[in-house]
């Protein structure tokens, strides 16, 4: 029962962030996922990322669809409003929430079934709209909660637990996002917290849709040999091309790296993402290069990870709409209602 929250007794020894909160304050209910599920590691990374960024939990809205992955918002940020919506339709709910209150810090969590099958259209359109949110796709190649059917991210040739081979093309979320003009595209691995945490942080700070595809093995249904989404396979085939360091606005930007190995991207709020390049020639602000590189690695049987693409000039829904600053929710009624005089005047038109 996910509403059994953990005791919140504080160990005085726990490290506090600028708000005086410990990591415990960013936790949620006890997980009900299988022991060893990749999704739980992502939850831990999310907790760490928010804590380190000194974000007040209640300023956050956490949303999801349906699936094992989509349960996880219950397991972090207990002081944030959560919305476990319907299968595959979280992007729309998030889009609406963001339209209403652009001040909310929004994180959406989804699975590969939720995002790439039933929810594919909504995901694509949220990307296209550039809704200001962090979108974490917890990608295990299967439908965990319905017990192990192939999802649309299952690679061709990958076998199920029972030994059946998938025959269809896989949908690659990162390629898809780039094709749709996403402004922030990353891929990581649930087992690589060092890589994942700064990506999440950059994604939160990014103004626009930050798409993060995280390979997150399903220990119960897709962690066997023959699976390309297992721990073993991912550990072996993941290749980091670029490592993101996230530097919040108020921290001074410290020491320089060797020329050419670091790329700096300043985000909308003044924070900086420093991209330490493993591949010297990789340019994380070049959409087409990113696409080609992902395909290159794919051909080599590798899974390319890191913050793959970041658009420096991202315009989110509100920028495009030219909405007034702040939240529409807090506008007083008299600013919204034209009043009876205006109505009477208007009606001259209708005569």
């Amino acid at each position, binding site marked *: 029962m996910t509403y059994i929250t953990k005791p919140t007794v504080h160990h005085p020894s726990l490290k506090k962030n600028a708000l005086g909160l410990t990591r415990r304050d960013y936790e949620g209910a006890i997980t009900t996922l299988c022991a060893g599920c990749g999704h739980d590691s992502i939850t831990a990374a999310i907790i760490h990322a928010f804590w380190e960024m000194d974000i007040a939990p209640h300023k956050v809205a956490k949303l999801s669809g349906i699936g094992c992955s989509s349960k996880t918002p219950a397991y972090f940020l207990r002081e944030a409003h959560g919305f476990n919506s319907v299968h595959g339709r979280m992007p729309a709910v998030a889009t609406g*929430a963001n339209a209403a209150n652009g001040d909310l810090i929004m994180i959406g969590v989804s699975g590969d079934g939720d995002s790439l099958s039933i929810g594919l259209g909504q995901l694509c359109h949220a990307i296209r709209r550039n809704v200001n949110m962090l979108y974490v796709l917890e990608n295990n190649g299967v439908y965990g909660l319905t017990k192990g059917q192939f999802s649309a991210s299952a690679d061709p040739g990958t076998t199920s637990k029972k030994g059946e081979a998938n025959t269809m093309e896989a949908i690659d979320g990162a390629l898809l996002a780039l094709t749709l003009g996403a402004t922030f595209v990353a891929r990581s691995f649930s087992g690589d917290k060092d890589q994942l945490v700064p990506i999440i942080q950059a994604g939160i700070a990014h103004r626009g849709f930050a798409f993060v595809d995280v390979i997150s093995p399903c220990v119960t249904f897709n962690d066997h040999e023959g699976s390309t989404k297992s721990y073993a396979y991912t550990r072996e085939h993941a290749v980091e091309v670029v490592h993101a360091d996230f530097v919040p606005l108020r921290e001074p930007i410290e020491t320089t790296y060797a020329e050419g190995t670091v790329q700096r991207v300043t985000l909308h709020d003044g924070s900086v993402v420093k991209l330490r390049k493993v591949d010297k020639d990789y340019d994380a602000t070049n959409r087409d290069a990113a696409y080609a590189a992902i395909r290159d690695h794919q051909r080599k049987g590798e899974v390319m990870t890191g913050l793959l693409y970041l658009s420096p000039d991202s315009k989110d829904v509100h920028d495009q709409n030219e909405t007034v600053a702040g939240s529409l929710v807090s506008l007083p009624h008299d600013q919204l209602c034209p009043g009876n005089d205006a109505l009477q005047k208007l009606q001259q038109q209708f005569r």
Partner: protein
Amino acid sequence: MTRVNDFAFKIATANGTGSASANGLIMQAIFRMGVPVTGKNVFPSNIQGLPTWYEIRVSKDGYTARTPYFDLMVALNAATYAKDVAEVRSGGYLMFDSSWPLDESLKRPDVTYLGVPLAEMCNATFKGVRERILMKNIAYAGALAGLIGMDPDVIAALTKEKYAAKKALLDSNEKAIALGYDYVRTHFPCPLPIHLEKMDATRDSILIDGNTAAALGAVYAGATVGAWYPITPATSVMEAFKSFCMKYRRDPETKKKKFAILQAEDELAALGMVIGASWAGARAFTPTSGPGISLMNEFIGLAYYAEVPAVIVDVQRTGPSTGMPTRTQQGDLMMCAYASHGDTRHVCLYPSDPREAFEMAAKAFDLAERFQTPVFLVSDLDIGMNDWMVPKLAWDDAYRPDRGKVLSAGELEQARSFYRYLDIDGDGIPQRTLPGVHPMGAYFTRGSGHNKYGGYTEDADEYQEVLDRIARKVQGAARAVPQPVIRKTPGATMGLVTVGGCHAACMEAMDLLAKDGIALDYLRVRGFPFGDEVRQFLEQHEVNFIVEQNRDAQLRSMLMLDTGVPVEKLESVRYYAGFPMSAHHVISGVKAKLEKAA
């Protein structure tokens, strides 16, 4: 036989040729002469070249229902001549474009034919294909003006207003009107026996369509987020909302917007956006039509069970499936009331005309927030897209949105605890908080099983407790929705019961039936769940004629289920072939039932 200010005529053209502005001019001119008038646009589901009609009824008594009896046909579409000729009332008139001869087989001895060489005159007067086509429309308006005696000054004034800024257009329009007007005045005895005379019956009224009015209601209620997917006949709701917002809702200095309109990728997404926005605390709505409601079913259930406000405007069209997208029907009554799997029941509001569309649209937001549930504004194509004469709209500036039990940061600070789904005062309505406001307000919204504390549950009792409370809550809305309109007739033992846009036809039918000695009490439901008043009315009458526009007697079904009144008391009178209901449908339906009983 002379008939002043009491006749109907119909203009047959092809769509995409620009006749809309001519028809608008005619409507407005009659209206400004102080004569009650309504217009019904009968258009095809395509963009250009197919038959389209505009029906105008002039009624000194203020009847606004459609009438299928046309005294004058303006037959300008050769493709529909045969059909159009057949529709003229015996003794009536048919005006046609005599630039080409009319086939003899189309001539009826009981109809007077009025040939006006519109094309010929326009070709001689104007240059270029486009202008010639457009001006032919204005020319027929001019001809009509002459035939039925519209006031030339009113027309002149209207034209001047409209083209104040466009001198060239003004000239052409004036010229074209004169072409038609002068021709008929010289060639026919004008005005015809059916004609207009000035009255003073429209001073406090406006001409407006229901979609525009509903959009205005949303603006006035303070809706800030509109999400939609285009669909006939609901599209103009959001178009109107947008244009009103552009006018009233931009920061005077920065021009920044105090609203957000999201053209969603489909209807599922549109309602999802509304749910997200409402959850975040905005007033949000989505206009759609039947196919959209079908697609929204899953999300409707989520909003119902997770108790998220949402306003859904269903501008009904003829179903099932794609059906006839440009024809009207009341085919979604049941679906709106019970949409989604599992046990659900939804608050519905039923406007009967644009004025109610305005008022109820605004009301819908109050109810959605107060009861934390989806609320349907169940309109239809006839109300939504046609031009109705209604009393001027008014707004009470004292109005403040009823946000329901939303806890502020201060209230949360004070509270010792907050549990999202707890019924603290017995009305079945729990307290609600908005994201971003206060840590104490945090809860987890879900469509899966939850207990009154907001926790996930698979426990039978905990689950049932919440589900039963929601049933009580929605039943409670019966007292908050607009109460039925009831009109009693002394001595009547039978009732006439209806919903929405059938009102106009029922009003007229009752007057006519009364002349035949058939006295009826009247009730029009305006909100669902139905309240006690509705049940009592039905029980009090020996028999109730339930008038509606769908095949399966959906209103009657809902009345049976909601009031328990036996079917024997509920005689069904239906018309559902796509046109707005007319008085004659009601009358013949009632009489047929009475004869059967006798």
